[in-house]
């Protein structure tokens, strides 16, 4: 009796909004290698959308298409009602798409705070000279950015390492800092590339909680790639499954779990 869960629910009551990102018939190839073939799926506002699939299925390529690293040869992306084939990375960032990377891409020699502040770069308006002098509007702006960064530090509970160089931190914390840098840009869509890879159970639980909190409290739409099926099934609203660059399944975790193609792709099938 004592271990009763308090009657609060994440996920179940969460309301997802209209489609915010719609990917239509995306195909991407590198020379003769077809990374993605005719893939379509959409992402609704406020949802947690997972992309899963075996190694080499094209998951990271998909994320790279979304945030403009790759420009697909075919298909179109409709983001907030705007049609486009592809966009440049900075355009994606500017229009509210932030991401973390499979291999941590932080500035190792800089402190956690400085790393997170770089996430505000696009939002800094005042000119370089004023910033260097820390004067007038630049000063006000810097204080505003710092406040935002501190809010994220508080949110992710990393106050104790605020001034620590990132290179000295354990892996799990570095992942959290990277999430912080993406969050501080106040993104509308957050792309997470294997946020839990290489973590132990406790770190995974923490990370899950932060992802749910981000989605719930900051209202951020999340697209994530993850290999840990337990995590994916627990936290995502809808899952899209890729295999060899093709979409083989799309739906709620339960639907995907019972999809025969998905089972075959993961467990293999006798021929």
């Amino acid at each position, binding site marked *: 009796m004592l271990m009763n869960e308090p009657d609060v629910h994440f996920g179940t009551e969460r309301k997802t909004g209209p489609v915010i990102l719609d990917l239509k018939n995306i195909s991407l190839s590198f020379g003769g290698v077809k990374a993605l073939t005719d893939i379509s799926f959409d992402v609704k506002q406020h949802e947690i959308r997972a992309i899963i699939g075996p190694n080499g299925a094209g998951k990271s390529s998909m994320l790279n298409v979304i945030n403009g690293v790759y420009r697909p040869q075919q298909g179109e992306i409709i983001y907030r009602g705007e049609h486009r084939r592809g966009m440049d990375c900075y355009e994606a960032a500017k229009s509210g798409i932030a991401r973390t990377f499979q291999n941590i891409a932080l500035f190792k020699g800089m402190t956690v705070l400085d790393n997170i502040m770089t996430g505000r770069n696009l939002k800094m308006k005042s000119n370089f000279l004023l910033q260097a002098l820390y004067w007038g509007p630049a000063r006000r702006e810097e204080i505003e950015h710092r406040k935002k960064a501190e809010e994220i530090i508080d949110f992710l509970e990393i106050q*104790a390492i605020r001034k620590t160089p990132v290179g000295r931190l354990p892996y799990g914390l570095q992942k959290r800092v990277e999430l912080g840098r993406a969050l501080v840009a106040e993104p509308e869509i957050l792309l997470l590339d294997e946020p839990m890879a290489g973590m132990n159970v406790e770190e995974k639980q923490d990370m899950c909680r932060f992802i749910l909190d981000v989605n719930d409290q900051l209202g951020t739409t999340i697209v994530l790639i993850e290999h840990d099926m337990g995590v994916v099934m627990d936290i995502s609203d809808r899952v899209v499954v890729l295999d060899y660059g093709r979409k083989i399944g799309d739906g709620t975790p339960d639907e995907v779990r019972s999809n025969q193609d998905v089972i075959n792709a993961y467990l293999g099938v006798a021929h």
Partner: protein
Amino acid sequence: MQNNTAMPTFPRRLVQHGAVRPDKPAFREKYLGIWQTWTWRDVNAEVRALACGLAAIGFQRGMNLAIIGDNRPRLYWAMLAAQSLGGVPVPLYQDAPAADMAYVLQDAHIQYAIVEDQEQVDKLLELKSLYPHVAHIAYDDERGMRHYHQPELISFAGLQALGREYDRDHPGFFEAAVEAGRGLDSAVILYTSGTTGKPKGVCQSHTALLAAGEGGVAFDQLTDDEDILSYLPMAWVGDCLFSLAQAMVAGFTVNCPESGDTVMIDMREIGPTCYFAPPRVFENMLTSVMIRMEDASSIKRRIFSHFMDVARRCGAQILDGKPVSLLDRLSYQLGNVLVYGPLKNVLGLSRVRVAYTAGAAIGPDLFRFYRSIGVNLKQLYGSTETCAYVCLQPDGNIKFDSVGLPAPGVEVKLAANGEVLVKSPATMSGYYHRPEATAEVIDADGYFHTGDAGVFDSEGHLKIIDRAADVGKMNCGAIFAPNYIENKLKFFPFIKEVVAFGHGRDQVCAFINIDIEAVGNWSERRGIAYAGYTDLAARAETYGLIRDCIEQVNAELAADPLMDRTQVHRFLVLHKELDPDDDELTRTRKVRRKFIAEKYAVLIAALYEGKTSQFIETQVKFEDGRTGSTSADLQIWTSKTWPALGLAA
């Protein structure tokens, strides 16, 4: 009874500080990386709003208010608000699992609670099905609370808003409530750690708690310019004495760290002038310094060790104002510039005028180290029942093995069995709703029986040896004081916890808990690989290291005619850390002997049967309340002992 109304209470003190020093900082808390300050005027307004808010939701004189969370200014205000209404705050250990809290909630008849965050709210809601009488819960941190719609919940800010409205509608209510407070009303109920049996609620009156505060403030001449850092559990008497009693007497500033992990960083930023920590914290600081020094370049290492020698030779004397040769004085000054000053700065001890330690015995080396670099470290002795106000160490006459002279206004005497008896204005008014238990510890003459065994030295300084109840007899008739032996062993950095057995036996045997950081570091330096705690604890190298420590202690014990029979003959290193979550330690990290003796009966049997190894499987409880089990094949080693000199002489 007549002059009772004039007696100071905490709320009256608060009003007084608001009038005398309205613009002096009363509380600080770091929020979003910046220290926020509340002056005494602000705090008066905050407490008033909160008290009226509590009144608005039905909190009345005589009720108890549970306070659960880390040290936050708002939780201290909650204590003052409850007191303003004639209620009693009951701080709980914030890291206790829900099941442990249930007992206190029930015992103290808690209907109202003010807690820090979602974590604590969850615990209280979890208990709801069993103890439905907790009807109102206010929370400080609103994070994650958006989906909670239970009727008993209200935010701290919401409660204060209610209060401001109530205050407008009931002018004069707050003043009248404060005026109605009596000095002999309970100011706080602190639950004992439950080393022996179920926790008991210790009721301290306003008069008693303020007397303890006044005594300490006068003795060490504390002023309203002091800064202290509040980071110890609010449910502990030490925090109550410093952050509440002394702060409300002297009117100094209470600083709350950003989070539990940032204490050392915040300490450096604040630079407290008055610092309080259990020996464990001082030890961790020293260990971290030593580890970092070992990694320093050789020239730095040499400078460090040279000046530490100088400090060891004359530092403590200089601090005590004793005569020291001119050459030593000059080298010490140079050392201060090169080593001690920077070191104190790194540790956040630069501005410390007086530092206290209490809660456990402090190692002589550790104690001397801090005094020698110029930190005026003193030991405090006392218990929850005596507000930790029994003995004080006067400046200039400090002995590391004693707790000092009886404090002003306190009478201390020894019972026939060596038990320390205390009579003071700061003694508790009684255990909450337990007159029989109160009568057991406070005798007809008003002496509180501390349960500690002690002796006075020639200068009248009190020396504590052990818990009177723990002192046993060995089969040969020798006195067995387990704490005395355990403390000697725990002074080694490698040993975190010890449980010694010997009462009613022919020999003393011991369980050892290694300090994973120190032993881990030691192993790494020797290229010994290990997989984790259990693995490291079982390694022969570790056993050898521990045996060396034990044999050194045995040699010391052999030289003491009272203790020479209690040398440790056999020992084992436990496969898991003793943990309060597994009920092996109290929340203040004292060993629960009886429980351990029952839980590990197989191991004790193996120690005395002369076996060389024993298999054991134990349940462990994780922080989130789940359980698992861990097992290991423990080796048992024999250590060298020396012939009993006392017997020979």
